[in-house]
C-alpha cells in the first residue's frame, strides 16, 4: 500500500470513527429537535 493510500485509509477510518461516535450518541447536526426555534412558518397551499 502506497503512502497516499495509507493516509487516505486513515482519513476514511477517522470518518467512520466520527460516524460511529455520532451514531452511538444519537447525534446529528441535521436533527429536527431544537431546529425550529425562531424559524419562520408558512401556511397554506402553494398551488397555482
Amino acid at each position, binding site marked *: *500500500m*502506497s503512502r*497516499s*493510500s495509507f493516509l*487516505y*485509509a486513515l*482519513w*476514511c477510518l477517522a*470518518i*467512520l470513527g*466520527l*460516524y*460511529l461516535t*455520532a*451514531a*452511538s*450518541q*444519537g*447525534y*446529528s*447536526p*441535521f*436533527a*429536527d*429537535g*431544537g*431546529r*425550529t*426555534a425562531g*424559524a419562520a*412558518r408558512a*401556511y*397554506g*397551499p*402553494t*398551488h397555482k
Partner: protein
Amino acid sequence: MAEDGSVRSLSCPACGGTITIRAAGYTVTLACEYCGTLIDATDPAGRIITRYNEMQASLAIPLGTRGTLRGVEWEAIGWLQRSDGWATWEETLLFNPYEGYRWLIAQNGQWSLGTMLTAAPQRDGPDQIVGRGRFTPFYSDNTARVTRVAGEFYWRVKPGEEVRASDYVRPGSMLSLEQDDREKSWTISELLTGREIRAAFDVDPPPVWIPGMTPLAHQPSPYVRRIKGWWPIAALSFVALLVLLVLFGQTMQPQSFSLSVTPDGPAVSQTFGPIALPLGKQAMTVAASTPGMEQGWVDIDVAFVNRKTQDSYDAYALNEHYSGQDSDGYWSEGTRSQTLKVASLPAGTYDLVVDAQAHHWGSSGNWAFDPSSGTYKTEGLPPVEVNLTVARGARFASNFWLAVLMILVPPLLMLILHIMFENARLAQKDGPPADADDWLRGMESP
C-alpha cells in the same frame, strides 16, 4: 593529443581547455565544454570545425559524470540544447562501451531516458506500435533546432542543425521520429522517476505538478495512481457505513399517544409519559400523523422534558393537506404525517409535552366572520386526531450522506486535479482536438 588507454584528452585549439574523449573510436565530433568550439575528433591534430565563443553551459550533469540507471552504468559524454520555437529542452548523451548510447532528456525539470530504436515501429492507423505499447500522435512535424552543444557525439552536430520531429505518446513514454533529408530515426523515451534520476546523477528531483504548470506530453497524471488506489478503500468504507447505518439506525420500544384538536379551535396541550431512557445519550423518533386532516394544517410542538432537570428537547411538525379541482383536474399537496428525530437526549425519565393547534384553510367549511378577532372562523368541522408514536433510536440518513461526502472529498479533489492536469497536457496536442479516447488513455498506468 594525450592518450591513456581508451580515454584520450586533447587541448582545445581555441581556448586551450583540456577536453577528454570518453568514447574514443566512436566519437566524430567534439564540442569544447568551456568555449563551445566544435572540433573534428577524427583528425589527429584536432581540427577546428566551428569556433564558438560561448560561455560554458551550466550543465545539470557535468560531462564525465557516471551514474547507474536501471542496472547499467552510464557516462555523460555530450550535451546539447534544442528548441522547436516555443519549448526548449536539453539532451545529455550517455555512453556505455557494452550498451552503446542513450539520451537523457530534460524538460521542465522532468527527465526521460531515450533509446534509439533499431527497427521502425509498426503503424496502425494514426498510431504506432512498439512491442505491446500503442503510441498515439501528439506533436506533428515540428522543427527541432540545436541551439547549444558541448562534449562529444557520434555524428557531426553543430548549433543550427535542424530535424523534423513528430512525437507519439502513451502515459510515461514518448516515441519520437526525427528525420532530415538523409535519414530517419526513431527514439523511445521513458519518463524517469525522481528517485531514479536522483539516485543515478544526483540532480534535483522533478517538481510536483501544480495547476498552471505545463506537463510533458508523455507525463502520466500523478493523480491517476491515487484515484485507482483509493477507490477500493472508498468502496470498503461505504459498505462499512451502510452496516453502521443499519446497526445504529433501529428504533425500539415504541409508545403511542393521541389527542384531538378542533380546526380553528383553541390550542391543545397535553403531557404524556413517562418515557424512560436508561442509557447514555440517544436519539428519539416521533412519528406524528393526522389522518383526518383536510384543507388545513396542524402545528404540532413536541418537547421531551426531563423530569429531574426540566431540560427540554423540542421539535416541531407541520402536518397539512390541501386539495381541489382546477382546469387541469384534481390536485393535492401537503402531507398528513411527519417523522421527527430529536438528537442526543441524556439518560433519564422524560415527559412528552405536546402542543397542537389545527387550522382550516379556505371557505369550503362553514365559516363566519368573528368581529372580536377580526377573522373568519370555521364552524362545525370535526376534530382532527393527532397520533404520535415515540420510539427510542433514530436513523439519521443525513449523517450517513455527510460521511459519504467526506469520504469522497479526497478522491473528488484528485479527480479535479487530474482533469486540470490532462487539460493542460492535452492543450499542447497538435492535430485534431483531444477526444474521449485521449482522456481515457490519460487514465492508463505507465
